[in-house]
């Protein structure tokens, strides 16, 4: 049969096509499968709940490559790199028998998923590290540029993505919108009148930059940014739990404000908070910084086990460190290896060892405390130190000075562990009863010959004896206890050192007449073992020794701080089996997880070394977490939305490269300057866009992840309160100091066994910035809670914004908002005798920083007229509304109502 020429051509073409298709399917180099973006998501979604950190069914886990390739219970590995067909994993996900087929009792994997896994195994089953666990690398700025729009590198990243999803950026917002936005973002309140004028009249190109710089150097900057940090630090003015009694730790809040204001570099900012006490130049400020980790709660309820709650605090410090500073849900690893991320069970406890040697032991008084000396006491102390410099060596001087300032290191009563005829009593103090014995274990007495203790005695003629090793063992020392002045006292006595480590038995007897056999006669709070006061026989000895005792006893304000045990009181750390603190596993040494940057060579194995590791530029999480957080403060949502979790289960960022670029810049170019980081973001064209939304934007990017518009976010609880007070003119400028108690409804505080009251502050203290409001954990300030404030029981990495009718009720009816409205109305009436339209325009413009549109103005005017008519006809209502005012005119009442309405407008509670 002859084939026509034309048919020949067709045959050849067909053959060529067939070869081409065959080549395409069988011979072309396969696309490289990416583990992180293609494989890991399948594992996390379909496999890892049975084959991961929590459960390893059939001895198979997909968490680490070594585990995934290791032989399973069957003796064979499930994955054979390069051989998908021979890999049990592929056989099982494609099996027909429902008992065999994985995921067991769940829908099978899709064809695409199976194909991805096959290819991945054939390509060698390579593992990849999740981006957030790889050190930040220098990232090139994309070349996406639009003439006249880009202002800095941020915009190139944003524009590139916008081009990809075919969205255009929004125009720059009006000057007055930018003014309000920038001011709320930087100082938390609207700008001063002067600053507004300056900016609005500044016609130069640098006007906006000048505004930003001026706000960055404003003293209220620190207040705004501290309010963000307080949620992370779980700062509160009470200790939590049942009694939830007051804790004076506000100096830490003030430390934060100052640190933000002076733009302390972020790595120093963290190091001081984590380990200020261990820094070579640890001064009072650095010690106060460590109160960061003393914001954990304390439970001194009778009958609870102090060790349980000490442990809870240590765990809280670990979890907070990871969640707040490294955006990682490390808490999961307490009970088992992390279900999704590369952290092993024992790594949790190795990290915990950094915190576990802290002196804090969940005592009622929150020891260790830093005692704040008045100027005159400081002078007395420095005279004492000068005298010591002549009469003692440097080590002793440091010990003495530290002891005077902190009463540390001392054994707290809570560590006494065996009792006869007595127990740990109220406040967990060692109760001394007649013929009682209390044991203190493992005390290093080498080279010590003096003890100092804090006690109280309720009867006279008590005798406290300390015996060595047995209740009737050799006598170490004996001391007489009498009632003396009411309250806790400090005293001490000498002894001859037996050398070595000993158990000490404290026996007490009294000849006083007792009402009951087991009456509490005296108590011990802590005891410190040391050497005799130096310089005996030297000039000034008696005077200086007395001064030492006087300074020890002096009452003064305190702040709880971090402090580690000395070597002879070292506390070892064990793994808790399945997270149960009572079931101790292997002892571990302080270390960091292997999957992250290595522990710095020269760093000490303590909190300071840990801080050095955490703030090393190689640490992949620290800078990213902070950049993400700052971005969230400005845009309402982080680049990675889940601030608390940048791991594989967190929401993955659209702008990962931008996050990396900013993080690199933050560490390397801006030398950890937080102000420069904030400035970078605020100087971008991205930030300066209008925040108007339209249908297209809602359709393509409802949550504004691509930044085709500026941020439009509801203000925080603090901002909402502060803004109303600021606009009305009521806001106090006073900074720092003890927390205040502004008005709140009656009956909010009803804690059992706690007789503290909410006493409304006087004068300007009622109108302070929200950040100074007394924060009680179990009954926090109610109007702030309504606006998503958090109780601060534990670290909260972000607040989730809600929109509820209860919020409307706060701004409509809370006395604070009404008082502000009233104050503002009276002020407006005083200032301006013009017609009501002028007054309303002024009220609106003061609040929003722009003129009212006609319809809104008409609505407000209408409200005013209705209210005026009502109040003119109803003197009684007028009098009630203006109860606290001299001005009882219906105009004042009507205007109060209108201002109250303005304070409730959407625009007012939003950042546009």
């Amino acid at each position, binding site marked *: 049969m002859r084939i026509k020429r034309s048919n020949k051509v067709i045959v050849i073409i067909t053959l060529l096509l067939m070869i081409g298709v065959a080549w395409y399917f069988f011979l072309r180099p396969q696309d490289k499968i990416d583990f992180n973006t293609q494989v890991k998501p399948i594992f996390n979604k379909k496999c890892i709940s049975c084959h991961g950190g929590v459960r390893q069914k059939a001895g198979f886990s997909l968490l680490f490559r070594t585990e995934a390739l290791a032989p399973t219970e069957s003796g064979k590995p499930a994955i054979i790199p390069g051989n998908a067909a021979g890999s049990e994993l592929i056989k099982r996900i494609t099996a027909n028998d429902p008992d065999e087929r994985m995921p067991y009792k769940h829908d099978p994997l899709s064809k695409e998923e199976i194909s991805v896994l096959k290819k991945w195994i054939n390509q060698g089953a390579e593992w990849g590290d999740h981006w957030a666990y790889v050190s930040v690398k220098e990232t090139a700025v994309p070349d996406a540029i639009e003439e006249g729009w880009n202002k800095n590198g941020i915009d190139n990243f944003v524009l590139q993505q916008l081009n990809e999803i075919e969205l255009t950026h929004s125009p720059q917002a009006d000057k007055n919108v930018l003014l309000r936005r920038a001011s709320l973002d930087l100082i938390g309140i609207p700008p001063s009148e002067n600053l507004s004028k300056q900016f609005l009249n500044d016609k130069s190109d640098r006007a906006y930059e000048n505004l930003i710089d001026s706000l960055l150097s404003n003293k209220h900057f620190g207040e705004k940014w501290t309010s963000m940090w307080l949620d992370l630090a779980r700062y509160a003015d009470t200790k939590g*739990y*049942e009694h939830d009694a007051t804790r004076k730790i506000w100096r830490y809040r003030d430390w934060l404000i100052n640190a933000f204001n002076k733009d302390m570099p972020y790595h120093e900012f963290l190091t001081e908070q984590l380990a200020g006490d261990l820094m070579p130049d640890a001064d009072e400020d650095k010690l106060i910084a460590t109160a960061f980790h003393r914001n954990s709660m304390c439970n001194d309820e009778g009958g609870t086990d102090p060790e349980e709650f000490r442990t809870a605090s240590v765990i809280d410090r670990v979890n907070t460190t990871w969640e707040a500073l490294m955006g990682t849900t490390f808490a999961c690893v307490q009970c088992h290896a992390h279900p999704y991320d590369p952290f092993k069970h024992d790594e949790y406890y190795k990290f915990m060892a950094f915190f576990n040697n802290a002196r804090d032991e969940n005592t009622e008084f929150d020891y260790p405390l830093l005692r704040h000396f008045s100027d005159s006491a400081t002078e007395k102390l420095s005279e004492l130190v000068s005298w010591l410099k002549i009469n003692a060596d440097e080590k002793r001087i440091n010990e003495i000075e530290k002891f005077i300032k902190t009463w540390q290191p001392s054994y707290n009563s809570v560590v006494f562990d065996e009792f006869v005829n007595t127990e740990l009593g109220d406040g967990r103090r060692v109760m001394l009863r007649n013929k009682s014995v209390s044991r203190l274990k493992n005390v290093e007495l080498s080279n010590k010959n003096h003890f100092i203790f804090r006690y109280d005695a309720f009867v006279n003629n008590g005798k406290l004896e300390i015996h060595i090793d047995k209740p009737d063992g050799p006598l170490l020392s004996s001391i007489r206890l009498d009632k003396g002045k009411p309250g806790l006292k400090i005293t001490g006595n000498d002894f001859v050192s037996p050398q070595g480590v000993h158990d000490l038995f404290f026996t007490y007897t009294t000849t006083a007449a007792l009402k009951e056999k087991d009456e509490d006669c005296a108590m011990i709070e802590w005891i410190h073992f040391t050497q005799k006061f130096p310089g005996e026989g030297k000039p000034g000895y008696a005077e200086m020794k007395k001064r030492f005792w006087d300074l020890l006893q002096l009452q003064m304000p305190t702040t709880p701080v971090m402090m580690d045990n000395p070597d002879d009181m070292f506390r070892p750390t064990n793994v808790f089996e399945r997270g149960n603190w009572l079931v101790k596993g292997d002892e571990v040494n302080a270390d960091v997880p292997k999957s992250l940057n290595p522990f710095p060579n020269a760093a000490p194995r303590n909190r300071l070394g840990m801080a050095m590791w955490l703030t090393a530029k190689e640490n992949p999480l620290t800078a990213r977490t902070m950049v993400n957080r700052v971005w969230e403060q400005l845009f309402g949502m982080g680049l990675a939305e889940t601030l608390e979790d940048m791991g594989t289960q967190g929401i993955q960022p659209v702008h990962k490269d931008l996050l990396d670029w900013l993080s690199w810049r933050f560490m390397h170019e801006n030398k950890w300057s937080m102000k420069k980081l904030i400035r970078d973001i605020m100087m971008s064209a991205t930030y300066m866009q209008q925040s108007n939304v339209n249908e297209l934007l809602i359709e393509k990017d409802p949550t504004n992840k691509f930044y085709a518009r500026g941020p439009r976010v509801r203000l925080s609880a603090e901002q909402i309160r502060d803004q109303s007070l600021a606009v009305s003119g009521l806001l106090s400028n006073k900074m720092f100091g003890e927390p205040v108690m502004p008005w709140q409804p009656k009956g909010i505080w009803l804690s*059992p066994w706690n007789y503290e009251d909410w006493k409304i502050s006087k004068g300007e203290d009622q109108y302070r910035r929200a950040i100074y409001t007394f924060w009680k954990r179990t009954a926090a300030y109610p109007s702030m809670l309504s606006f998503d404030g958090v109780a601060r029981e534990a670290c909260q990495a972000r607040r989730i914004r809600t*929109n509820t009718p*209860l919020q409307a009720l706060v701004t409509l009816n809370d006395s604070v908002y009404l008082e502000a409205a009233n104050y503002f109305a009276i002020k407006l009436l005083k200032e301006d005798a013009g017609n009501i339209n002028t007054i309303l325009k002024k009220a609106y413009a003061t609040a929003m920083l722009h003129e009212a549109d006609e319809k*809104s103005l008409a609505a407000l005017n209408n409200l005013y007229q209705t209210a005026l008519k009502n109040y003119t006809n109803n003197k*009684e209502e007028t009098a009630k509304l203006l109860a606290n005012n001299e001005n009882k005119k219906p105009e004042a009442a009507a205007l109060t109502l209108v201002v109250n309405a303005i304070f409730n407008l959407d625009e007012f509670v939003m950042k546009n």
Partner: protein
Amino acid sequence: MISGEGLGEVKKIITMKDHSKIIKESQEEKNRFFTRRHFLKEASFGFGGLALANLLGGCNFNDSTAASNILFDPANPLLPRSPMFAGKAKSVIYLHMAGAPSQLELFDYKPELMKMDGQDCPQSLLEGKKFAFIRGVPKMLGPQAKFKQHGESGAWISDYLPHLSTIADEVSFLKAVTTDQFNHAPAQLLMHTGSPRLGRPSMGSWVTYGLGTENQNLPGYVVLTSGGRNPDSGKSVWGSGFLPSVYQGVQCRSEGDPVLFIKDPEGMSRNLRKASIDAINKANQQEYEEYNDPEILSRISQYEMAYRMQIAAPETMNINDEPAYIHEMYGTQPGKACFANNVLLARKLVEKGVRFVQLFDWGWDSHGTSEDGSLSCSRCSKIAKQKKNISHVYT
């Protein structure tokens, strides 16, 4: 549900027996919800429509994973949601007797303990444990109350519960709960949040987070306290932990404003409040026209809801107008912050569609020897009185 945190080793909960009536009701409710949901989904444009469509789109019965992905819409966080599985109950009333009357005196009959009354506590119970306030070797205390079997189920109930025993067959006694927390505050936390330490969401938070609430004019999770103090562990027992704070319990009070800030200021009439909200919403409408942000529309509806809530909450919280036989039945005392009032209120609230009502009655601590703390006597009258209202709320 009734509970107390207890001081003993064992804690008990009573839950209501399921009724076929409730199952049927929930089925009807589900149908109703489904129809309305369907309607809203189809008609989801305009006011808050975008967020709503987003939320409802995720609430497909056949796709449980999608439903669990989108449970929370910040613009309408409390809209009712259907559970993944048909539940039997549609709302919860949880009575917590803070301090805890001992179950050993109420419904957990221990004849063996009776025999050991007055003897030294066996070492096996004391070894390796620390107890607050207990010195030396304490004596065993047998049941002080008299036990009898009641109802067809033959449940052992003491004479401290004369009213509850009349509905013995209507309640389930759960005698399978233990705790290692013997102090009030951590035990209460464990009971309500699943952890003895602070920071986790309470049961009511989880329920309203998962199911929303039926009546948008009332809070979805209401807390009522009596006894003069808050629970030992404070408001954390109705806190939202790591969930958004909108899911924390709203404490309603029988004295003062029923809900904080719900009352208009002195000198502001309802008409003026209405005029003021109208003006606010008009201006916000303008704002919407400029910015087109759907969040503004939800704010408008939240203000309307707030206005309605200002009427609905005090109305529901008012028990003055209840008929005399109801007052008699519950032992209520209008105007006072007492447990009986709260029990009646709880019933009214769930009838209005509130999802979760949590009651705390403080002052049930009964391990002392004092007049009002001893087991043997003082509490009997309190128990007798209060269990009466309990028996009514569940029937």
